């Protein structure tokens, strides 16, 4: 009974299963290509387009005019330098040729010796009071003439000694000559010490070495000259002179391309540095000292400097030949430097003059041929403050790919910023002839957000931002002939420039630009009509 029941169930099951395919029916319509509906392929792709990674080293680079300095606190300083040099001692002070003629009255008998002391005075170039000359070169010529004695056949010997001189061995300069002969002495490495009014005493010893003078007194004409004089060092009182160092401009590259805006540096300084190897007290005068930007100009004023002369140090006679440094800092406590920088100057200009011995003859001067003084002007801008700046620059060449299957393009700009500066960037599209096509990126929307700072201006955390610019297919048609992109930028420090910020060397800005494109393509499988 059970087997019969099972057989019946099995029979029905078999019939049921066999009929399944027929219930479903044959269906080959899916294989008919001509019946296939059109397929609309639609996808969305995001691709990297541009990237820009900047740290302070790429934002500010060392150049001829600019030096980037990182202090011990990692704060970035921008440093701009200029300098002026004075003329050298050799160019300012010289010794002219000297010529002396004097007569000696000789009453000498046969084999006698007479000693004469003659004072000669050097004439300085100006009205210096020279007390010592150390020569590097020069010639002293000496000749004695006495025609009467020559007729009588008398020969005289002259022993000449320049008193208070040094021939380089600790002995006075001396030499011997004879009547009607010329003597020449090389003055290299020899020293002349002068008494008041640049006088020298020349000791002349005259000795009859042959013949017999018969009718004294005789007049001996002495001709003594100093020529081709070049010195190593001059000592004395060089009187008061004015050295014009000329003028110079310190180019502040930071503001080079700024068009408009405001900026405030918390602690800008102008460092003055003088290096002096003249052994003469010098006052530096700033005949002009100002910052300028186009028509705007602000004079640098400060007390005591530059409103008053700046006394620079000089090497003493014991330190002759060395360079002595004098420094002075113009800062916010002693000057109007904030006003000077506030106009965002392209240059800081100065015109310097040096006045020697401003207090008169108060100390022994010494000048070497290579003596010189230099005045350096350094503008220091530590990046601590606030700013609201705008700048403009040229273009980047750019071309769009084929846009037929692109429904839209979306520029996505991601920034990761640890610099406390907000940036606004406007990007305009121009064709090959620089005809304006369209503004792609509006400049009134912040592209890069400033990193947040504390009340001391230190960055607390980096800031990320995302900007999307969607360009629909119709707009793509407007700019399909784009050939150039023109950028205009505006930057403000954190808090819209209402708070101080600090920029450190480890701050950086990364910008990533991607393009999101919606692709759409319709595929028809049917036969072409």
């Amino acid at each position, binding site marked *: 009974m059970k087997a019969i029941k099972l057989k019946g169930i099995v029979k029905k099951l078999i019939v049921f299963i066999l009929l399944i395919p027929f219930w479903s029916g044959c269906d080959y319509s899916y294989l008919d290509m001509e019946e296939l509906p059109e397929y609309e392929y639609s996808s969305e792709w995001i691709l990297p387009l541009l990237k820009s990674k*900047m740290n302070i080293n790429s934002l500010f680079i060392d150049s001829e005019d600019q030096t980037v300095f990182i202090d011990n606190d990692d704060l970035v300083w921008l440093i701009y330098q200029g300098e002026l040099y004075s003329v050298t001692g050799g160019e300012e002070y010289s010794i002219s040729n000297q010529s002396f003629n004097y007569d000696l009255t000789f009453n000498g008998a046969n084999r006698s010796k007479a000693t004469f002391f003659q004072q000669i005075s050097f004439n300085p170039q100006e009205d210096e009071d020279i007390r010592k000359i150390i020569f590097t070169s020069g010639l002293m010529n000496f000749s004695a003439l006495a025609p009467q004695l020559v007729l009588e056949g008398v020969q005289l010997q002259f022993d000449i000694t320049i008193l208070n001189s040094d021939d380089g061995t600790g002995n006075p300069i001396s030499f011997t000559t004879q009547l009607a002969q010329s003597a020449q002495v090389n003055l290299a490495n020899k020293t002349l010490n002068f008494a008041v009014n640049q006088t020298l005493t020349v000791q002349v010893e005259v000795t009859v070495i042959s013949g017999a003078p018969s009718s004294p007194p005789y007049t001996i004409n002495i001709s003594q000259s100093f020529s081709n004089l070049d010195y190593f060092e001059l000592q004395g009182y060089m009187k008061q002179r004015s050295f014009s160092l000329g003028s110079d401009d310190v180019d502040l590259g930071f503001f080079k391309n700024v068009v408009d805006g405001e900026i405030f540096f918390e602690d800008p300084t102008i460092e003055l540095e003088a290096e002096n190897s003249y052994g003469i007290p010098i006052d530096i005068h700033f005949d002009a000292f100002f910052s300028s930007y186009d028509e705007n100009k602000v004079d640098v004023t400060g007390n005591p400097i530059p409103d008053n002369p700046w006394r620079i140090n000089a090497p003493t006679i014991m330190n002759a030949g060395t360079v002595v440094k004098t420094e002075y800092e113009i800062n916010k406590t002693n000057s109007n430097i904030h006003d000077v920088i506030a106009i965002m100057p392209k240059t800081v200009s100065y015109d310097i003059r040096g006045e020697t011995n401003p207090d008169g003859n108060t100390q022994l001067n010494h000048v070497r041929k290579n003596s010189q003084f230099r005045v350096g002007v350094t503008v220091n801008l530590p990046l601590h403050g606030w700013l609201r700046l705008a700048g403009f620059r040229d273009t980047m060449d750019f071309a769009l790919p084929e846009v037929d299957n692109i429904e839209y393009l979306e520029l996505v700009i991601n920034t990761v910023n640890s610099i406390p500066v907000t940036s606004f960037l406007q990007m305009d599209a121009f064709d090959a002839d620089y005809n304006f096509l369209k503004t792609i990126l509006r400049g009134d929307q912040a592209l890069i957000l400033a990193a947040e700072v504390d009340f001391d201006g230190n960055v607390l955390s980096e800031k990320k931002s995302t900007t999307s610019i969607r360009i629909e297919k119709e707009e793509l048609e407007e700019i399909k002939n784009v050939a150039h992109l023109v950028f205009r*930028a505006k930057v403000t420090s954190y808090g819209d420039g209402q708070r101080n910020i600090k920029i450190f060397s480890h701050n950086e800005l990364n910008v*990533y630009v991607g393009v999101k494109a919606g692709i759409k393509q319709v595929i028809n499988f049917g036969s072409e009509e």
Partner: protein
Amino acid sequence: MTTHNSYKIQFRFIVSFVLLLLFAAQSNGQQYNTIYWMQGIPQYVYSNPAHQTDANWYIGMPGTSSIYGGFGNSGFKISDLLRMDENNNPYWDEPNFLSKLKNKNLVYADAQIEALAFGFRFKEKNYFHFNFSEKISAQMGYPKDFFLLALEGNNYFVENTDHGDANFKGLGLNIMHYSEAGLGYSRILNDKINIGGKVKILFGHANAYMKSNDFRFNTNPETFALTLYTDATINTSLPMEIGPIELGGDDDENESENGDEFVFDPVEYLVNFSNFGLAGDLGIIYHYDEKITLALSVIDLGFIGWKSNVENQRVTGEVMYDGIDIGNLFALAGFVEPIDDNGDEPVDPIDQALENLDIEYSQNSYSIFMSPKIFLSAKYILTEKHNFSFLARGNFFESKLYPAFTLAYNIQPIKPVGFTLAYSYMNYNYMNIGFGMHLNLYPFQLYLVADNIFPALQPHTVQTANIHFGINWVFGYRKKTDPGKPFHGWSF
């Protein structure tokens, strides 16, 4: 412990051991579900060497004794993508198509032709069989993320952050052509147990194999950088030499320096015995009682060692493209002076990115393990002529299991005829109706088996399709003597 219980323990041990082996396997995809209990067909022993066919001896018609072709796709069927609306109008349904895909999917195709086969019974309890076959198989694993990327674009992965990278690790390929010479033996141990085994010598002719250890595509949401991570191995043993893969540079530079044209010699190709392999089948049948029979078999435990014309390419590295570096944006905007690039030639960013890809070329022999298939089945004998059976089969490819289950009704109403109706769950598809039949027109036998008849009716619903047919000469059907032996007779 009773003999019955000890057999149970051994049975469980064998099942566990074979399952472990499957985890080291590569699949070749051939399917024998419906044929499993069709004992009238001599080729049914290929799925369990412990089987003994009805005929005392048989000879396969040379070249036509076993012709098999199969196709499968675990990922989707046509009607998952092309659907009908309420008005019976077709439309493309991408979301539905993507929802059907698994993370890793497999598509395969294989074919087999038996050149020679014969078998015979020896002294009642022993059965020997031999076959020589040509087999071609191709499997390709494809990941869902591949289609996601192609159809949705990479922005999908940027917006769906929980998804992670587009992961193509399931991408793999194994194409193989080999010859198989097999010798099988089965023995009826006692009333309860049949055991069997088969040794197969394999000769590989061609192989292309790709495996990816790491293959990911990443789009960085912050920088938009596109990065391709790759660690893939490509092994080939082909009649022609491919040479090292070169990326970037001019196409002219990448042309082979060997200007000789390749000439294919089919004889040389087919008689290439350099790529030697060995495989084995094991099977056991346990007659639990008069009604219930259990069977376990493991097929294709083995490997082929590829030695001739082998080439290995290992591609590793990261290829990244993150846009054109415009340097100092503030210089562009005019706030600072641009850094002088000294007039250096700009570097092609694509070429620069490809330099990070390392391609290691070698010519080392390699082995590919065959894909063992494990069959676990139970048969319930309804009557002498009817039985139901349940079969579970497991295939592995790229570390993923592709299971299949079949419920079959087997009937042999009269001596020369047998039918099987089967319902299968395969490739994640529930609509697989299988059919098998053999017809003995003494001494010829025609047979036809298919795991799924729907390809002939509604191809758009199909993820599995195969057909197996052939002609044998069969002799000496045995009369039914006891339950342990094959039976024949008509009763309904």
